[in-house]
């Protein structure tokens, strides 16, 4: 009796194991959760109170902007379905999309847009991005679906600021109530925030009323916060993660062994450089800076330290429409470097301090290669590792360095990249002509006219080399083979799940 009971129980167990499996198979694809990894916990989810990349990576799914960059970096309509600029470039009129609903049920109207930008400009908000909208004089709302921005002065980067994460539109009613957007963000985005377990995960639920018909597709997205690289790789291999955002090239061979994983490679928007402090002799001597540029085998450093990429010759990321090729100005030529240094009278007695941000392993690795290459042409370079806060305060703010290695993030508008150079930003490089060109381009409208100005400015920067321009690296994401349509917003580096789906999933 006892024995038989056991047998029945065993059969029941098998039946139980089999049936749900088959039941799940149908609904599985529709209900399947998308698990993504990002490298850290955002400090806040309020898009107006931070400049942290992690926040905008998540907020891209929760909020929308009036306009947004498409996959090529071109600015296209989003919450605004069209816009126009007055001939004097001081009045920008946006026509809003109708029928857009916030996660809390409020309808989007022009007053929400007005309240949003008044909040970011309000001193009490203390937004680090307020200066991007400083040109706004006043905002008019002639009707529910028209917003007019009156500007104090011409501002070419204005549209790019509206398209960036900090241009996110918030509901007026909640702004007035002093809602806590930092931990309970409410927007019009494709997903609403379901749960945020600090330092662990962010759960996003599909917004059924999203204005883009048929999007998003996946019901639930879980953003897992995993700082440790090896844990991400293990998660990918064990099948717990569907997307690993930004993996190291070293990990690619391990992941590629798994036939269920694919690697997607894109050019990033980074400008990798070795910055040169032009105020410190002998680095104020153009010949020494040229020598440094001649001494570096750029492609080799890009390949070994940064996992591959495209070499650049000036201060603009490779895939930027404003990029111009100057790579043939200072090709790899250690002989020439040695001659120039001799001419400039640089000897081994002068010790150059190469400051490296310790928390960025690729920069440290590149720094070790630079040191070796520079010492081969006769420069005495000493490495100093510092932590990130020290780098920001001593190197970036106070210019206490000879040489340093860093990557500058590309911006939607070239003014964000170039603004202030020539006038003594951290490399202490002074060039009136370049500064004037950049300032002029800020208030010049139209791509062609601006490009002409930036071409000249970039040429000056390429020739006068306040930096050793290295290149723009590739970035790699690992995805399960059946995940398609995952997008990363160009320049802004935010995660866009609107087109993401599992193979075979109905739209």
């Amino acid at each position, binding site marked *: 009796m006892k024995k038989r009971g056991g047998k029945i129980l065993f059969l029941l167990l098998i039946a139980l194991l089999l049936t749900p499996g088959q039941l799940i198979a149908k609904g599985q694809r529709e209900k399947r959760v998308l698990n993504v990894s990002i490298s850290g916990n955002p400090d806040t989810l309020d898009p107006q109170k931070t400049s942290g990349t992690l926040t905008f990576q998540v907020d891209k799914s929760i909020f929308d902007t009036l306009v947004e960059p498409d996959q090529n970096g071109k600015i296209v309509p989003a919450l605004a379905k069209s816009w126009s600029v007055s001939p004097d470039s001081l009045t920008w009129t946006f026509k809003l999309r109708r029928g857009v609903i916030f996660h809390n049920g409020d309808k989007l109207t022009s007053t929400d847009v007005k309240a949003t930008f008044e909040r970011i400009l309000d001193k009490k908000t203390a937004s680090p991005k307020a200066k991007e909208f400083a040109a706004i004089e006043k905002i008019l709302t002639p009707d529910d679906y028209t917003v007019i921005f009156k500007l104090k002065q011409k501002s070419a980067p204005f549209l790019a600021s509206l398209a960036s994460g900090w241009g996110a539109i918030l509901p007026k009613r909640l702004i007035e109530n002093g809602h806590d957007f930092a931990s309970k963000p409410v927007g019009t985005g494709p997903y609403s925030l379901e749960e945020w377990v600090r330092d662990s995960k962010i759960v996003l639920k599909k917004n059924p009323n999203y204005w883009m018909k048929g999007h998003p597709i996946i019901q639930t997205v879980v953003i897992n916060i995993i700082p440790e690289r090896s844990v991400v790789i293990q998660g990918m291999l064990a099948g717990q993660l569907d997307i690993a955002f930004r993996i*190291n090239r*070293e990990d690619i*061979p*391990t992941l590629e062994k798994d036939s269920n994983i694919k690697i997607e490679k894109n050019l990033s928007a980074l400008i990798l450089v070795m910055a040169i402090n032009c105020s410190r002799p002998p680095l104020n001597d153009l010949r020494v800076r040229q020598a440094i540029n001649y001494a570096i*085998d750029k492609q*080799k450093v890009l390949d*070994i330290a940064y996992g591959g990429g495209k070499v650049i010759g000036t201060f603009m990321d490779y895939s930027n429409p404003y990029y111009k090729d100057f790579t043939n100005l200072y090709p790899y030529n250690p002989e020439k470097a040695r001659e120039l240094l001799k001419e400039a009278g640089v000897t081994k007695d002068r010790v150059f301090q190469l400051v490296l941000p*310790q928390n960025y392993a690729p920069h*440290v*690795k590149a*720094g*070790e*290669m630079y*040191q*070796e290459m520079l010492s081969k042409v006769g420069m005495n370079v000493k*490495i*100093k*590792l*510092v*932590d990130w806060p020290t780098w920001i305060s001593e190197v970036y703010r106070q210019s206490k360095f000879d040489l340093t290695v860093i990557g500058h993030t590309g911006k939607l508008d070239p003014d964000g990249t170039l603004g202030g150079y020539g006038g003594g930003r951290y490399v202490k490089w002074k060039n009136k002509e370049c500064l004037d060109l950049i300032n002029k381009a800020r208030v010049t409208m139209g791509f062609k006219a601006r490009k002409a100005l930036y071409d000249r400015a970039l040429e000056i920067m390429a020739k006068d080399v306040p930096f050793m321009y290295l290149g723009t690296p590739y970035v790699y994401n690992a995805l399960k083979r059946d995940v398609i349509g995952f997008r990363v917003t160009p320049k802004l580096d935010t995660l866009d799940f609107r087109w993401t789906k599992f193979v075979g999933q109905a739209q």
Partner: protein
Amino acid sequence: MDKICGTGAIERVSMRHKRTIRNRLFYAAIIYLAILGAAAVAAPLISPYNPTDQHLNDRLKPPSGHYLLGTDDFGRDILSRLIFGSRSALLVGIVSVSIAGAIGVTVGLIAALSGGIIDNILMLLMDSILSFPTVLLAITVVSFLGYGLLQVMLAIGVIFSPVFARLVRAETLAIKTEGFVEASRALGSSTLKIVFLHIIPNLIGKVIVQGSITFAISISIEASLSFLGLGTQPPTPSWGLMLKDARNYLVQAPWMALYPGIALALTVLSFNIIGDTLSEKINPRLQQ
């Protein structure tokens, strides 16, 4: 009676057997360290390559006739880096132990000889240092002083001084009451004379034992700090730094981690064996 004698004999034999093994290990350790020391001194002469030369076309090469122990991710020769790395390891040991010993012995002597409130304050200070986890305290000190080998040696030296202070204080208190010290004092010797003539010579053995054990710990702490990026600064070769670099290539190039790992383990083990054996030889109660 016979039986009892028999077991006694067996015990004695196994005891002797144990001691010969210990002795052999002791000599093996000494020979290993002698080789290491010689390698450190003669590093530029015996290294096949310059330890910081990057052969970028020979990255991550496995051990071969060309590169005896392979190359790392910059194409640097691992054998040469290992040889030069022994310099920082031994240097850290020597300097840290000297600092710890100098501070510890002085504090311990002063505390024991003066007694009373000075003793209390000094020992409280020392105990408070001891109450922190070693590596954590080292990280804190190095963060304040800045990264680098010199800072690491200072930090380790300070952190281990209480170990010496306690040892010296306890020993001094014991020796102070010995008959010959009392006799010397009765004969009118000054405190200084007693310290140098009677106390220090009787301490030296134990301090050396403690020193060799501390030596081993210092080397592993330096490796830990370098592994975290706080110790030896690149491109100076250090075993800890080599292990740190190797972490990203454990699957592709296991030799990058293997050899510095072995060198580190053997060195630490050797100093521990020497410390243990010496303490047995010095302490007659352990020596049957």
